[in-house]
């Protein structure tokens, strides 16, 4: 059985989902060098200093995507069809958020198109609903 439920209490990744529940996109930034650090870890991968959860603009571009008509996993049927995406964030395009593109004409999707965050409830089979940062064309 696939475990898909985001754990809001997990020390490393819980803050991401707690921010999302408040309709904010937050990822770790360095207290010292100010760079974004993704995925979450104990200390800055660039300078070793401490990290804090930084609220971002929610703007980015479409780095890569796939239109999934039929889910490859049964649990994903709840939100299929869907557009799975890697989103390059405005504050640092080297940081890619795994997410989805919604509210779009899939035939108009193109890499590098600008996107902005929109919070939507996802509820894969077997999961309690969770508010997730997804993206729409802007």
């Amino acid at each position, binding site marked *: *059985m*696939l*475990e*898909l*439920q*985001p*754990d809001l209490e*997990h020390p*490393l*990744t819980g803050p*991401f*989902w707690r921010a999302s529940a408040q309709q904010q996109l937050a990822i770790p930034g360095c207290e010292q060098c100010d760079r974004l650090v*993704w*995925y*979450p870890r104990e200390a800055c991968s660039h300078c070793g200093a401490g990290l804090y959860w930084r609220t971002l603009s929610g703007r980015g571009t479409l*780095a*890569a*995507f*796939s*239109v*999934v*008509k*039929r*889910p*490859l*996993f049964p649990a*994903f049927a709840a*939100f*299929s069809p*869907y557009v*799975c*995406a*890697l989103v390059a964030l405005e504050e640092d395009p*080297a*940081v*890619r958020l*795994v*997410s*989805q593109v919604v509210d779009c004409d899939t035939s108009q999707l*193109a*890499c*590098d198109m600008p996107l902005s965050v929109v919070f939507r409830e*996802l509820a*894969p089979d077997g*999961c309690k609903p*969770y508010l*997730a940062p*997804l993206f729409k064309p802007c």
Partner: protein
Amino acid sequence: MKAEADWGSGTALPDIRGQVAIAGIGETAYSGPSDRTSKGMAAEAIARCVADAGLTPDDIDGIMYSGALGDQFSADDFRAHFGTRHAMWESGDGGGMVWAATAPAQAAEALRSGKARYIVNSFAVDWASKRGAMAGGPGAWHASELIKAQLELPFGWFPQPLYFATFASRHMHEYGTTEAQLGELVTAFRRHANSQPDAVMKDRALSLEDYLNRPHLASPLRVEDCCLISDGGAAYLMTTPERARDLPQRPVSVEGVGHGIIANAPYISQQGDITSTPQHFAAPGAYAMAGLGPADIDVLGIYDCFSITALMQIEDMGFCAKGEGGAFVEGGRLDYQRSRRLGGLPTNTHGGLLSHAYVLGIAHVVELVKQLRGQAANQVDSPQRAAYAGFTADEAGTLILGV
């Protein structure tokens, strides 16, 4: 152009050129669900491999396998199955994927130091049989990893076909690669499978038109762009070149080994350049060790878990420039009849993971040994040098063989 240090690195390996010979190969039948177990298939492949080398199980004093998978064939399994009692050198750093390429580097040390004289590396999977139960299989590790489970799976970016479907969209965007070009690669491997007696897809023809008429699984990829899920296993036997000369088969020499890894391993969503693979960092080390370059490779076995990963690795190994892989594979260039002399690059001459069997690269190495011995079903014209590109998303290995 991204600086190399930005997104990955090659691993320094000891120079083992000419120190290891492959003197035996063995395989099981390859199939869909079969009710065979991994260990049972490994035992069968090893028995054939040892016999192919003109040896008996009592001669085997070294064994390599993938320790990361719980069901591979260890020294204890060897003793229990073959009824031997002697001590064996063993290593869990062998098996398939990347390690089917890098196993000889570790074997060389064991041979040099006298820890072992004849070392078998095997890999076997029963993932076709287990598919219904959703136990194990290619997605299991990815689903169990904390960060992936918490920050990738909740968005539906899983399993691997989605990883490489997204990467393919980027490759197409940056370089103009087309679905028809992916289809050229897929159908070349399928044609090889159609004349390979033990290929799972032997009787399933696939034209480029057929391919293009198939629906997307996850755009831009179709089912045909994704590897099979198979039951099967294979093994190869390593020894010193001196001992190999006294054995019945024409020895195949290990000329070069390379290994590369991305900076953000294991998280390929954060890989600096998603139009490339860590093969970009692995191949240079193997070429340098062998004193060869891409132009010297007569036959290629490339880890084709997806069409796009094979295409990107062809670029990353320098057979063409980055971004030109799509045009490169057009016009049947990968067909086994198109030797380098004729402007081709015979690739995955057994059909690969896409059309032969998904045994994670171990059969690629076995096929290259057959090619260099002159024993392949789809025999390339007198190859002298072969290369295997192993891959596991965040890591890659390269093995260069010669006769």
